[in-house]
């Protein structure tokens, strides 16, 4: 059993590298490999980028590289959060948006968009800032509705999550109806897809990603123990309530940060952990790091598809994940009837 832990990680790493490369190489403009190599060489040697290479240089380093980074960060955050929530709630339908991150982020973004902020540094930051705040505030609301003293019962969380999600969704729809001017922009944001380019989003997401996923990576054993139910987990010496608070806290931070810049991208947090479970089993000590790699690879591939499938138009990546995610999910459903991952 120990020998097996080596191989899946290497496979996932290879898949991620392939996806990263693909994301850099593919786009609505096809660059020749020669040009790309020349640009990389020119940069590395600190030399001048000739006029003929300027386009390739801009496309590679100002457009594709930061986008690749952001998509990878988002995909990994969503997949790891999804896996952690599936373990925490002991429910195969759990995803990172269960307790309000998506509905809160959407509401925050739409509020700001309907205020028609002006174009300046503050104005551009307003949308991600508002969606991050919205996400965090919504999770806090769900948690405070659900808690009983110091404990956080799972059923309460689920119910409060459903209630708050539909409330926030209703508010969002109402605002969309009212503000016809920014409707297009708001809908595009809600469908997912990185509308902001450059390195700022990557740098903004990175600290939350590092903290959130860093802590979540250590939660594998705790999640394993929690599969036996709150009672047995506590009798085995696991501080169940503390663990629950921590997982919800860091997971919400990482997901909120990612979603604030890329919009709501569904299915990654739901599908990727299930796929990986089929391949390597339900041990969360393996599932979490593999979800990190697999989630990034999955979303990168979806993003590549979003860029090339209707070129030069770019589809919001949330549409791609939903379209490709659904058949995957049905296939897993059929197969999993013979597999005992959920009793």
């Amino acid at each position, binding site marked *: *059993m120990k020998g097996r832990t080596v191989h899946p990680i290497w496979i996932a790493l290879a898949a991620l590298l392939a996806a990263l490369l693909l994301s850099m190489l593919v786009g609505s403009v096809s660059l020749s490999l020669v040009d790309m190599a020349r640009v990389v060489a020119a940069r590395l040697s600190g030399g001048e980028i000739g006029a003929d290479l300027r386009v390739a240089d801009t496309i590679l380093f100002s457009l594709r590289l930061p986008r690749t980074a952001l998509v990878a960060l988002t995909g990994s955050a969503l997949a790891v959060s999804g896996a952690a929530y599936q373990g925490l709630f*002991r429910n195969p339908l759990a995803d990172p948006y269960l307790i309000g991150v998506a509905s809160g982020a959407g509401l925050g973004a739409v509020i700001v968009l309907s205020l028609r902020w002006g174009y300046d540094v503050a104005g551009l930051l307003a949308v991600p800032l508002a969606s991050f705040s919205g996400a965090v505030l919504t999770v806090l609301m769900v948690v405070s509705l659900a808690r009983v003293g110091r404990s956080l019962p799972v059923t309460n969380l689920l119910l409060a999550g459903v209630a708050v999600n539909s409330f926030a969704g209703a508010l969002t729809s109402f605002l969309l109806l009212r503000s016809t001017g920014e409707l297009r922009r708001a809908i595009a944001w809600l469908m997912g897809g990185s509308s902001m380019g450059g390195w700022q989003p990557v740098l903004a997401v990175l600290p939350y990603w590092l903290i959130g996923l860093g802590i979540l990576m*250590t939660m*594998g*054993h*705790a999640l*394993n*123990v929690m*599969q*036996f*139910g709150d*009672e*047995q987990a*506590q*009798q*085995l*010496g*696991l*501080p*169940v309530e503390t663990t629950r608070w921590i997982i919800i806290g860091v997971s919400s931070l990482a997901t909120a940060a990612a979603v604030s810049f890329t919009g709501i991208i569904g299915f990654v947090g739901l599908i990727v952990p299930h796929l990986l*479970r089929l391949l390597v*089993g*339900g*041990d969360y*000590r393996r599932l979490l790091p593999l979800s990190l790699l697999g989630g990034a690879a999955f979303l990168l591939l979806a993003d590549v598809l979003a860029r090339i499938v209707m070129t030069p138009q770019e589809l919001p990546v949330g549409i791609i994940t939903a379209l490709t995610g659904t058949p995957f999910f049905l296939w897993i459903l059929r197969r999993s009837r013979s*597999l*005992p*991952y*959920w*009793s």
Partner: protein
Amino acid sequence: MLEVLHLTVRYGAKPVLKDVSFRLADGEILAVIGPNGAGKSTLVRALSGILPPECGSIRYDGRDLCALSVQERARLIAVVPQARSLPAGFTAWQVVSLGRTPYLNWLGQLSPADEELIWEAMRRTDTQHLAHRLVGELSGGELQRLLLARAMVQATPVMLLDEPTTHLDLQYQIGLLNQMVEVVRQPIAGNGNGKAHQPAALVVLHDLYLVARYADRVLLLVDGCVQAYGTSAEVLRPQLLSEAFGIPLEVMRSPNGKYPLVVPLMA
């Protein structure tokens, strides 16, 4: 020695355990019996820290268990629950290994000593051949033995068994209780704290004919109160039991004359 004094536990407004007191010495097996709703499972949950007591104290060797952290408590008390709805994707070995959780770091890494302990526990419960099988494929009896092995690996001075013989065929009931006795008499190699004393076991039993055979002392709970507490001879009395269970019961001698047998009186 586990000392329970005046333990009172409520579910909301309703008291489920009232003023329960008893002692459990190292190496002793205490059977808890009583009709449904008497509070037997509640007692297990209160002792293991799931339900906070309203008043009363639970002490081991003088230490107040309620003042301990979850992890410290888990090093003193292990629970063998009923083998119901265990997560199907775990292997038998993984289930037993989780018993080491109170001693592991946050990442759950097992040392070679831990692994040796796990294998020995599985050998003693006759489950080592199931090590790589998935929980979903195992029978109730096999799962119950796994849970016993898990508690063994937790290497605690006190072990609580909550109706471990329910849903088991007779031969497995006997087998499990035999193994429980063996664990108590011959403790598994410790958790490295140097203590080599015999663990104590509190076992909730439904089946009255097994009680006398396995228990040193018996606690009779009715409606949350201690109705009787003493040796099997003292507690297993027809009048007492008939009143407690609401049907006429007779106590007879086993054919070899060693143990009292409780049987319902057929009209």
